[in-house]
């Protein structure tokens, strides 16, 4: 099988610059020396656009091109890094000298050539921008605006945004092997404000994928976002005070999987565990969840926002089991941390762009389905909270404490879903929250493609997912005591 993604990336990045493979070899040679354990050259060219509608009209659009090169030399635990927005031979050589300066001391690891795998093709090497005409993009936004206003007279404001583009990357590794990928990404978001008797509430919904814009036209997808945004806003109009205190919480399927991302995902990234700074450090083989829980990080799901054919170090992505039937199995690794921990890279070496260093990052993190129908999970709860939709979350890796904020929640009374309550933050302890999972639904869902994860100032697109879960004891941060 030919590697079309690599060919397209090479054509997009190298051809216009009149740079050849031999030029890059020369740059790599400048970086390599006796004390260098690893080195790479990362070339990237990205093109994105966005269109936004408010007040019933598409007021503005924007277009951006970002390109550059990042050069890295690694010696032991030390990393030297230089980047530039200019991809030209003299600049690259200068950057290579800067990066190499890291290796003032240290021994060289043995040079090894890894078996070359042909990466899978989880998405096509395309540029989504021309997949709809400009007029069609504008007509789509206007149609969605009209649909939202038609759904309910209480809809007062509608903001719709459409963005898309593609990033071509080339990674030249120390063995001279060239890896390439072209990563399309599209995103559509609908946000509404509803008003009733002077009370205003907001609702938003959206989705995205590694595909072109026609993704949103398949079936009823774009209109579905509109209905969901309006529904959420209207539910919030009726919401009363949220309860405060520790209680049984049922988490809905899909995006509420942000629980897994925060509570355990970050804590299982290789860098924190190599350094012993994670609440999960040194706990492989131990029970960290109830036996009902199996959690994976899977970069190989076709078309998903968090998926990658290869990571940003050229490693082919995989499905990594993090927790199997409650037992911690392994961490997510990039090349540096894998080498220092004596394990294999897991295809989780990601970076925001050429201007940032790669580190272990999640792709699509989700829990496998259990056996219980979701209705039975609700029925099992006497008194608690059903949290169906969430905003974002955050975690303190070291103490293990994490939060995530519900944006749609209901009280559960005597096994039935009761009145809606306002959004509230939920807080828990990562290493033990999953030990309190007492029921796992048979309704695994992945999120609609909206996640962006931040770590050390770097943002990357990710996915999450889970079935309906019952957690016996999470602290709910409402106002009603």
């Amino acid at each position: 099988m030919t590697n079309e993604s690599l060919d397209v990336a090479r054509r997009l990045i190298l051809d216009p610059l009149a740079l050849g493979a031999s030029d890059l070899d020369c740059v790599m040679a400048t970086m390599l020396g006796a004390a260098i354990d690893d080195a790479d050259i990362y070339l990237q060219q990205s093109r994105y656009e966005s269109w936004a509608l408010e007040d019933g009209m598409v007021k503005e659009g924007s277009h951006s091109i970002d390109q550059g090169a990042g050069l890295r030399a690694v010696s032991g635990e030390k990393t030297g890094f230089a980047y530039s927005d200019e991809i030209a031979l003299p600049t690259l050589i200068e950057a290579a000298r800067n990066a190499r300066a890291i290796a003032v001391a240290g021994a060289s690891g043995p040079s090894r050539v890894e078996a070359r795998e042909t990466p899978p093709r989880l998405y096509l090497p395309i540029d989504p921008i021309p997949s709809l005409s400009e007029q069609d993009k504008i007509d789509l936004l206007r149609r969605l605006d009209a649909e939202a206003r038609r759904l309910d007279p209480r809809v007062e404001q509608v903001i719709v945004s459409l963005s898309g583009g593609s990033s071509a990357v080339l990674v030249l590794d120390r063995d001279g092997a060239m890896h390439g990928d072209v990563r399309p990404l599209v995103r559509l978001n609908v946000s509404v404000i509803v008003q009733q008797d002077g009370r205003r509430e907001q609702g938003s919904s959206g989705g995205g994928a590694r595909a072109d814009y026609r993704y949103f036209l398949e079936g009823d997808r774009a209109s579905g976002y509109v209905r969901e945004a309006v529904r959420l806003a209207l539910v919030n109009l009726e919401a009363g005070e949220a309860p405060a205190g520790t209680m049984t919480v049922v988490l809905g399927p899909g995006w509420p999987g942000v629980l897994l991302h925060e509570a355990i995902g970050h804590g299982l990234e290789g860098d924190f565990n190599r350094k012993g700074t994670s609440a999960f450090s040194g706990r492989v083989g131990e029970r960290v969840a109830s036996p009902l829980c199996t959690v994976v990080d899977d970069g190989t799901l076709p078309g998903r926002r968090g998926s990658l054919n290869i990571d940003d170090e050229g490693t082919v992505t995989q499905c990594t089991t993090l927790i199997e039937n409650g037992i911690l199995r392994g961490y997510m690794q990039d090349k540096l941390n894998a080498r220092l921990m004596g394990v294999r890279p897991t295809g989780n070496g990601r970076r925001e762009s050429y201007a940032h260093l790669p580190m272990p990052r999640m792709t699509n993190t989700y829990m496998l389905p259990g056996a219980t129908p979701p209705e039975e999970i609700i029925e099992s709860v006497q008194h608690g909270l059903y949290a169906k939709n969430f905003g974002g979350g955050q975690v303190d890796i070291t103490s293990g404490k994490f939060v995530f904020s519900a944006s749609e929640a209901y009280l559960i009374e005597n096994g039935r879903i009761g009145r809606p309550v306002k959004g509230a933050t939920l807080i828990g302890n990562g290493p033990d929250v999953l030990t309190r999972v007492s029921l796992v639904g048979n309704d695994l869902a992945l999120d609609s493609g909206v996640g962006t994860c931040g770590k050390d100032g770097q943002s990357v697109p990710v996915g999450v997912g889970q079935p309906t879960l019952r957690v016996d004891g999470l602290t709910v941060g409402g106002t009603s005591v």
Partner: protein
Amino acid sequence: MSVGRQELKGDAGPGTESQRLDELAELIGRSLDSAAERGASGAEAAVSVDRGLSVAVRMGEVETIEYHRSQGFGVTVYFGHRKGSASSTDLSPKAVADTVAAACRIAQYAAEDPYGGLPDADTLAREFPELDVFHPWNLDADGAIRIATECENAARGFDPEISNSDGASLDTFQGVRMLGNTLGFMHGYASSRHSLSCSVIGQRDGQMQRDDWWTVARAPQDLEAAAEVGRKAAERTLGRLGARSLTTRQCPVVFAADIASSLLGHFIAAIRGGNLYRKSSFLLDCLGKPIFPEFVRIHEQPHLPRALGSVPYDSEGVATYPRDLVSQGVLQSYVLSTYSARKLGLKSTGNAGGVHNLTVEPGALDLPELLKAMGSGLLVTEMMGQGVNIVTGDYSRGAAGFWVENGVIQYPVEEITIAGNLRSMFKGIQAIGSDVDARGNTRTGSILIDTMTVAGN
């Protein structure tokens, strides 16, 4: 169309920066001409070039050395009231021309928006106060490593309970930026920014905690001493060891100065023009009304010498000026760009791109006195998550800090949330501390709020 242009006024001082400014002014001039040739009735362009060095040390060893070189060009064009924008990191003449063309192409499809367009000419900055924001640091990697190492060593050596480290890092950046538009505005200046931070981990009875401290300044000599930064990081970490949860309750809360700025951030979000004209704020129609208790004054000081938030003009070239947002607790002014001001029938306040050195007038009590004034309650020193709804003012965030009784800190707490509504939280401010944290773009002392709901175990 004729394009008038005022003389370049660079504050960059001698040498390469002023040369750089000339080159950038020429690049902007070319792009504005190119927009006009394509039929744009108005255009605005900005360009920036930055250089920097970051080093990180961990456990006494160098972890990373990063050399930064970045640049960016952005242009917004108007065809009457139709708008298009584009940006590129490639500053070559061809890339700049392509970028202008991309912006013009987008404008063809944008809707006619009567409020869109360049700023009113009379709002553009004509005077350029000396802000003293350019103090480049001629520091090589070895020098940076020495400082970061001293900082981390001070933290690691502070106490045997400091068992591990996330390291210390030193960053130094300098750059020039230039802004021009077809109303004749053209100005640029150089600025610098240096920072040092340290984060260490403590361990006691099987519990691990991490905390950090940092310093940031325009001039290297204004940074806190490296050993001081390390010592504070260690002290903060040790203070958190032994943290437990609280039972659910309602009680007064003190937000420590360095996180109290987040409350001001929510206030600014609620009086930003964009959220007001979209009716997405809990402070709609509040101009001239009391939002805070009478003793509260909040003002903007955009021209403070050497301050981090100081700018002569906003991101549209509109002059910035010192003014009160809140005096005697009453809302005096919104935070507006040209566009949001027009939507609201008002004038721009020079806040395209945000506020500049937002300042809460400090009170008389230092932190210990503030805790005495609180009596028994929660001192919050760390917040987690988003959990703030600007449309409704509903507030619910994760927190960590200390439980206080009779004004005396009892023990550290964690895994709790604090909740309320911003409207009543603002009204419920009892006192503002004298312990101003002046590091960032918001300067405030600690803030005591009468009551919030604390959820725990």
